[in-house]
C-alpha cells in the first residue's frame, strides 16, 4: 500500500492508483482508531492487569513487531549470506 510503483511497466489498475492507496490508508487508520475506541464498549477484562489497559494490545502489538523487525534486521547482518553460499 505504501510502496511506490517501481516495476518496469507501471499500469493503471485501480488498486495501485495513488488515490486508491490514499483511501485505503484513511480506512485503515479509521479501523485502527475504531478498535481502540471499541474497547470502551466491551466488558473490561485483564488476566495480568496491564493487558486490560486502554489500547494496551495496540501498543504491545506495534512495539513487539517493531522490536522483532529491528532485531531481525540486526541478526541479518550476522546471518545473511549470498544465495550461492552453500553451492560448490
Amino acid at each position, binding site marked *: *500500500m*505504501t*510502496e511506490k*510503483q*517501481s*516495476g*518496469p*511497466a*507501471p*499500469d493503471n*489498475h485501480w*488498486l*495501485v492508483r495513488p488515490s486508491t492507496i490514499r483511501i485505503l490508508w484513511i480506512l*485503515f487508520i479509521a*479501523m*485502527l482508531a475504531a*478498535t*481502540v475506541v*471499541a*474497547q470502551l*464498549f*466491551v*466488558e*473490561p*477484562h485483564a*488476566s*495480568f492487569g496491564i*493487558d486490560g489497559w486502554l*489500547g*494496551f*494490545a*495496540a*501498543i*504491545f*502489538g*506495534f512495539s*513487539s*513487531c*517493531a522490536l*522483532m*523487525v*529491528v*532485531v*531481525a*534486521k540486526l*541478526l*541479518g547482518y*550476522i*546471518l*545473511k*549470506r*549470498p*544465495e550461492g*553460499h*552453500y553451492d560448490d
Partner: protein
Amino acid sequence: MTIDMVPPGLIMIVAALLIALTRGTVRTAIVLAAPLLTLWAVFQVPDGVSLSAPFLGYNIELIEGSSVRRLFATVFSIMAFAGGLYSFRTARGVELAAAFAYAGGSIGVAFSGDLISFFLFWEWMAIFSTIVILSGGSAAARAAAFRYALVHFLGGVILMVGIAALYVQTGSVDVAAMKATDFASWMVLIGILINAAAPPLSSWLPDAYPESSPTGMVFLSAYTTKTAVLALILLFPGEKVLVFVGLYMAVYGIMYALLENDARRILAYSIVNQVGFMVTGIGIGTEMAINGAAAHAFAHIIYKALLLMSAGVVLHRTGKSRCTDLGGLFRTMPITAFCGIIGALAISGVPLTSGFTTKTMISEAAALEHLPVVWFILAAASAGVFLHAGIKFPWFVFFQKDSGMRPKDAPWNMGLAMALLSALCILLGVYPEPLYAMLPYPTDFHAYKGYKLVFYLQLLLFSGLAFFLLLPLMRRTRTVCLDTDWIYRKGGKAVGGALTRVISSGYQGASAAVQGFLGKGQATISGLVGHERRLGSSWAIGTSVLWVLVLLVGYAVIYTLR
C-alpha cells in the same frame, strides 16, 4: 480383527501402491477416493485397542483409538484428499504414491498403541517423505533430501535407543504419558522433538521442504511435524521443558521468516513458528492447553496447506518463488491471491478464521495458569505471525511492486482444492463447535467474547501498521540465512578438510621417518650381507611392498575421513 474395522492407515498405503501401478483416470479415481474411504475408516475406530498382533515376541497394538488420535487421523485424511485434488494433474506418479504412503504412515502413527508399531510407522514416514522431497527433481532437491534423510534417521536412532531403554527399564512399550526424567524418556523426547523441528535441529525443515515440488510441499507441511505434535500430546503432556522449547520455536520461526526471501521458505519457517505454539500448549499441559494444541494442529494443517497451495500455484505458473522476483500477481491470479489471503488471515488468527478459534485457546490456558511470561511471549508471537506470514507473504507475492509478470490463474483442480481449504478455514472460524466436540477433553471454550475480539483486532491491526511503516527495513535481499544446518553443510566439510591436512602432513612426516628408518635398516642389512646380491634385491621388493601397504592404509584413512 473384525471385518468391520479396516486399519485406516492401511487403506492409504494400499492406495499408494495402486497409484504407483496405475495411470490416467484409474489413478485419479484412487487418489480422490482413497482419502475419503480412509476418513470413513477413521470414524469407525473405537476407543481402546482394537487390533493387535504378535511381533518379535511382543504383542503390538496396531490400532488404538481415542478422541485425539481420531482428530489427527481425520485432518490427515482431509489433507490427503485436498492434497490429492491439488496434485493429481501435475505431480509425478512417484511423488503422489510416496505422498500417500507417507500420509498412511502418519495415520499409522496416530493409531499406534505401542512404541514398536509407532516406531515402524515413524520410520516409514521418514522414508516416503524423503522420496517426496527427491521428487522435486533438481540437484538441490536431491542434496536436500539426503540431508533431510540424515537428520531423520539420526532422530530415528535416538528414538529407537529411547524405546529400547524404556523396554529394558519398565518391560512395557505402551504409548502412555510420561515425563522426561531419565535417559530412556529423554531419548524418546529428543527423537520426537527432532521431527517437530525443535531446536537445535529445526533447520532441516526450511532446508528441505522448499526444495520439493509445488505439490510435494503441500503434503510435507502437514504430516511430519504434526505427527510429532500428536506424539508429544500422547507421550509428554505437561512436560515443562516443552514450554521453553515451544516459545523458542515460535520466536525463531518469526525471526528467520522475516529475514527470508523465498516465499515457500518463509512459509516453512512459519511451520516451525506455529508448531511452537502447539508445543508450548502441550508443555502447559492443562486440559484447555492440550485441547488448544490439538485444535490448533487441526486448523494449522488446513491453513498452512492452503498457503503452500497458493505459493505452489505461483511457483507452478511462474517458476519463481523468491519475493525479489515476484509482485503484482493479483492482477491475473485473483483466485490464488484471494485463497492465499484467506490462509494468511487464518494463520494470523484474525477473528472469523480457524486460527482465532484455536490458537487463542493456548493463550487462554496460559492466562488461566497464571503464566504471564508465556502469555506475553505468545501474544507477541501472534503479532509476529501477522507480520511474517499474514501480511508479508501475500504482500510480497501478490502486491508490492509490479513484477511485470502476467501468469494465468490456478488450474481448475488446484483452484478447487484451495477453495475447499479456504471454506474450511472460514467454517472452523465461524462454527468451531464440531471441532471442539472432537477434542481430547470436553470444553465450553468461547472464542468470541467482546474483550478477546477487541484485544486481537488491536494487536493484529497495529502489527499491520508496523509492517507498512517499517517496510523500508524489510527490503528483500537475494540471500540465505545461516542456521544450524551450517554444521553439516559447511562445518563438516571444514572439519574434514582440516583433518585431511593434519593427517596428510603427519603422514608426510611419518613416511619420511619410516623411509629414513628403512633406508638405515637396508644399509645395515646390505652392510651385513652386502656381497649376497640376491638377498639385497629381495629386500628392495619387501620395502616396496611395505610402501604400498602404508600408502593403501593412508589412502583408506584419508578417504574415510574426507
